[in-house]
């Protein structure tokens, strides 16, 4: 190969290495969104403007929230603690179990309930319909589609919502409404398409 060809090849190799290095730093796909971004997602999909919900309080503290993935800030662009491990999976489950349980308590019909006051009006109406489980209204597939979309929008493939609906329609026949609502939301929150960047 001639001299100029080799120079081009070396330049291409250098560019590839630079790009790979840069992408390695910037691309966080497959890592958790982190506590802060997930908190935003929850507000965006489920909660109204007066809500006081904070995910980190459900985990225990801001510092423990950092174990779910965080951006240190300043000049440090590295996203930290974003790769799934037993600790953060335990913490996600800890936080979302409590949160889902609070959503399930809406079925008690207490208008002073804290979570009932924090949910968006349309979300609350649909959750209350689901609370009539196993009535026909609560089995309406459109209701289930809406609940899925509130939380996840179109961030997951169709197969996920199908699997979710099928599971609850067939496995929760004898469940209490509160348990059904709680587990239905918990399983959305713990879904990889909800927690991970793509």
């Amino acid at each position, binding site marked *: 190969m001639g001299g100029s060809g080799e120079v081009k090849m070396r330049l291409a190799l250098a560019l590839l290495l630079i790009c790979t290095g840069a992408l390695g730093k910037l691309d966080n796909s497959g890592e958790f969104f982190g506590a802060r971004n997930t908190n935003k997602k929850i507000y965006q999909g489920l909660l109204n403007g007066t809500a006081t919900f904070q995910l980190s309080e459900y985990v225990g503290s801001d510092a423990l929230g950092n174990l779910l993935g965080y951006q240190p800030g300043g000049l440090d662009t590295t996203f930290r603690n974003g790769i799934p491990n037993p600790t953060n999976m335990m913490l996600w489950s800890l936080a979302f179990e409590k949160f889902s349980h609070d959503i399930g308590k809406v079925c008690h019909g207490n208008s002073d309930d804290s979570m009932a006051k924090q949910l968006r009006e349309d979300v609350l109406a649909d959750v209350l319909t689901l609370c009539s489980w196993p009535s026909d209204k609560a089995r309406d597939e459109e209701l289930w589609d809406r609940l899925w979309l509130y939380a996840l929008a179109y961030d997951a493939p169709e197969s996920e919502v199908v699997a979710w609906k099928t599971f609850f329609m067939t496995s929760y026949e004898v469940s209490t409404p509160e348990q059904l609502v709680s587990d239905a939301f918990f*399983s959305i929150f713990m879904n990889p398409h909800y927690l991970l960047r793509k």
Partner: protein
Amino acid sequence: MLTRRNFLKVSLGGATLCVLDSFAPMMSWAAQNEPHYFLHLIFPGGFDCTYMFDGRPLSMTKAQKIQNYSGVEPNLWEGSNGTSTWAAVGTKPLESYKNDITIVNGVLMTPAFDGHLQNMNYLLTGNPFGGASFMPLLNTESLPLDGIISGDIYADQVNFSNFVPLTSADAKTLVESVRLKTPLNPTNQVWQYINSRYAANSGKRSFSSSAAKMNSSIPSAARLEEYIRGVELPNSESIPFLDVVGQFFKKGISRSAVISEQLATDAHAAVDAKKCPAMAETIATRTRDTINFLKNTPYDDKRSLFDVTTLMVSSEFSRTMLQKEANFDETGTDHNNFNNSIILAGKKIKMGQVIGQSDWRTADEALSKAHLAMDDGTKRLFGKPFDFAAGKPRADLPEEFKIQDYLTVGSVINTLYSAFGVDEKHFREFERNGGKPPVISQLLG
């Protein structure tokens, strides 16, 4: 010549290495039923070991070869294996702990770089540019966490995702929160469904490999929860991190723990170099207190934590004897990647020894050509060549520098691997296919 074929070979080879690297800690390890934990005290910045267990007589200071701001003559510290060193003023807190520690001196770090990051990477991963850290590799798959860490380490460790940063206060909150939680039961129907989604989304790309990690983490998360429920921390406002380490070891939650403490060890300025004697004493005090804690904390009815834990105390390198450009009375110190001193103690370590030695032991010592090829002979102590069969420093003066002649940090880590039963295929190598740094068999008891 760089052809298209070679270009592809290099690029794809590199890409494959990246993938293999990140999967390295997932490889299977021999099941290890015998309790064995690892505690690493790291003092980043490069501490001056001449104020610790690699001291020099004041006659060398008088000859203006090496500065010693303590002005105190070090004591001869003889190892049970016949090798000796000088214990400087900073080691006083460890005076009566001779049989509880072994000093490894004359340890070479990366010969190619003298930066903090490259040498911290080299210490932890065996590569100046980072890679798989040795500590997660010490974990068998039976413990939920590879480790917990207090403080920061600046290093590029690709396999550190199961090493959890934790403060004592967070650990306390965590224990309280987990106790209030319904136990995570992977066999109940909702968890079976959630796991089925992880499995359905599992694969080898970034998203799908994380889904696979979520799937494989659930049984460990359930065990972790169960163990954390059993953690007993003192009921006080401020809990020493060692108490957390002790509980996480005793309950079988974590294989390793790192306590990283930032002192102003990077003593380029004379004002900082003058603080080194006091800093050395701080390091020795921390080491002594850690040994006392481990000895005084029962692991079970027969053993203390010291009996089941290997302790390592290190920095990324030691420091130069002086700065040539500075006035001797006002000199600071620079990085010395050709010499380091590491303290080892506890399980599997044959204690009371001094392994290895650095050169420049007298003001008129003749240096090897190997040393002079890497340094002009005025600034750096240099690890002496090492006889791995005898476990002693060699007296000969090599003509040329060959890394295989020396006691390197790779040998220290491979010795730890051997102590923890890590598969030999993961042992560190010298750069450029130079073979594996030998295990220092004399270190193991």
